[in-house]
């Protein structure tokens, strides 16, 4: 097996951490306080760093320890810090008049997880050719697809510019989570450039949030309705 094949306790820990990541995604989906989103995103990144370190230790992938440190630093500290700064400068606090109520968005998120689970089982079966998919593949594919789907759901259900930015970051976290579990041997280079890219996106969109407030007077996406047809 090219992927991880942990047994017993290790598998349980892996499941637990992946579930934590998924749960924190739901915290973001359910709350309308943007500051909570950022805190949940930071917490999610720390958990991802933990997962990275755990897989690095248990699976003997020393590169993952470096990635764990980078994740903690970039995704866990620098990006949340930049996001809080954007929030403070724009005097934003919470999402007003959301598209759907938080209970409803959590239900939709749950449906996404079910969809992801079903797709993961089918895909896993197709790839391995055996009917009960290995637990690693099951948790890896499910959490990957679920977090990415919920990230897209956040893009759709949110109206606030900063929430869109967070939605994009959640999608990236989902891809990172899946790649950690499914392919721990992914070259370090890719993770480097993805982090660099995330940093650029947050900085660029932070500047655009400033322009949005200056030119349009709002960071609500419903105000962005001039260009149609």
């Amino acid at each position, binding site marked *: 097996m090219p992927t991880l094949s942990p047994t017993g306790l290790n598998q349980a820990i892996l499941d637990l951490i992946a579930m934590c990541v998924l749960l924190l995604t739901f915290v973001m989906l359910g709350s309308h306080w943007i500051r909570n989103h950022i805190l949940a995103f930071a917490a999610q990144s720390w958990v991802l760093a933990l997962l990275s370190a755990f897989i690095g230790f248990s699976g003997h992938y020393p590169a993952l320890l470096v990635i764990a440190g980078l994740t903690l630093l970039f995704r866990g500290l620098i990006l949340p810090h930049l996001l809080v700064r954007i929030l403070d400068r724009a005097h934003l606090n919470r999402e007003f008049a959301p598209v759907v109520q938080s209970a409803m968005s959590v239900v939709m998120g749950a449906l996404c997880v079910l969809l992801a689970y079903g797709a993961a089982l089918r895909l896993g079966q197709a790839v391995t*050719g055996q009917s009960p998919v290995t637990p690693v593949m099951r948790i890896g594919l499910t959490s*990957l697809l679920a977090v990415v789907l919920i990230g897209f759901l956040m*893009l759709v259900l949110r109206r606030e510019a900063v929430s869109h930015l967070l939605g*994009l970051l959640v999608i990236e976290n989902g891809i990172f989570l899946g790649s950690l579990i499914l392919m721990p041997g992914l070259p370090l280079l890719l993770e480097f450039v993805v982090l660099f890219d995330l940093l650029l996106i947050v900085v660029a969109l932070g500047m655009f949030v400033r322009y949005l407030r200056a030119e349009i007077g709002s960071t609500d996406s419903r105000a962005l309705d001039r*260009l149609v*047809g």
Partner: protein
Amino acid sequence: MIWASLGILLTVTALASALCWIVRQPRIAEIVNLAAATIDCLLVCWLLVVTPSGGVRGVGNYLRLGPLGLWVMLCTAIVYFLASLHAIGYMRRMRKEKERLNRFYGMFAVFALTLFLAPVENNPGLFWIAIELTTIASAFLVAFQRAPETIEAAWKYVVIATAGLSLALLGTILFYWAGTFTLGPSYNMTWSRFAAIAPLANPGLVFFAFLLVMVGFGTKVGLVPMHTWLPDAHSEAPAPVSAMLSGALLNCAMLGIVRFLEILKSTPEHALAQTALVMMGALSLLVAALFIVRQRLIKRLAAYSSIEHMGIMAMGFGFGGALGVMGALYQMLNHSVTKSAVFFGAGSTMRAYQSKQIAGIRRVLDAFPVVGLLWLASALAITGAPPFGMFWGEITLLQGGMASGNRWAVVWTVVILIVVFIGFLSHFRRMYFGRPPTRPPEAAFHWTELASLALAVAAALGLGLWWPSSVWAYLRAIAHHLGST
């Protein structure tokens, strides 16, 4: 020698950008940028001649220079040169942004640099990053004139493109995963490595990954239904930036889809992947045609025309075979030069009439005989009328479609092309004839605007009248490399 030339090309562009930021003199910045564009253009032509047809790999196997990548770079270099020339006159007329003009040129060169980086990447992950960087660099150019519309366009552009590209990243990573089953957990990610593992991997997984990549890069290409950022960004950006977006950026993103299609070439899923691409192209063509017919704004008209042409190119690559691919590649170059001319003409006329609306522009020929004539010629060329190069690209591509057994798609394309021809030119009829405008347009174009427009139209005409056999041999070699037969 080849790598030295490429190194010079990238360094010159980067230095030009840095210089533009440092000197703060718009007049110097525009010359520096134009000089870099000229050097880049010459170097790409030189590379086109000296690079062996099999392509070369270098710089620790991180870079790969092959005919396909060079062809895309040629399109980029030509558009970069034309747009830099046009920008001199066009940007000078922006009164409010006078002090910040050097930043425009600095960012313009960065944008070009990212566009040159993408085709030479030998690592799909790094290719993805280069495409992602083009988004950020060009978003600042779109938002250069700070107005509610431009900021809105730039914001939508970044959010939609980044969300779409995250799917491309997911697809790339799933390709890597497919490889871990045969190559072990760690291996170097390169295009050729991916091509080697694809036949051994699970077909379902490979096809799923391809669909993700197609949708992801398709967002950047402007394939319907992920095209929604494109008309906004193209219409709100300054004209030279619109030309770069349309004539250079879309090609680079298309290269991603083509490269992944090439990876699938010896798998059982290749035919299915080709069909998926043809379907996406056909849908793009239809939606673009509908929006072209009912369009009220000039630059949005040109933007939807880009979606249309990208749809045609997607179909050409989807048809496969020598003729389909050759047609699509020839179409790519022709689209780059012709669409630049359309955007240049649109930008200058919009400025002169102070209106973005088609209805606000009347009797262009009366006011500007030369610019008007050239712009009209570019409109004819973009709708695929002979004797312009676009016509030959489309004919070749459609022949490829007939040969590939996608007859329905060929009929579909021909019908829609006729609709677009009538719709597009009927807008131009209204702008060239009809009642005289209530307010006379501001006269006087800068000579660079005229020169860039004339050069672009001349290139479009030249590509239609003159068919050097070496170019076709070159394209045939690329097609042979891409095709499974």
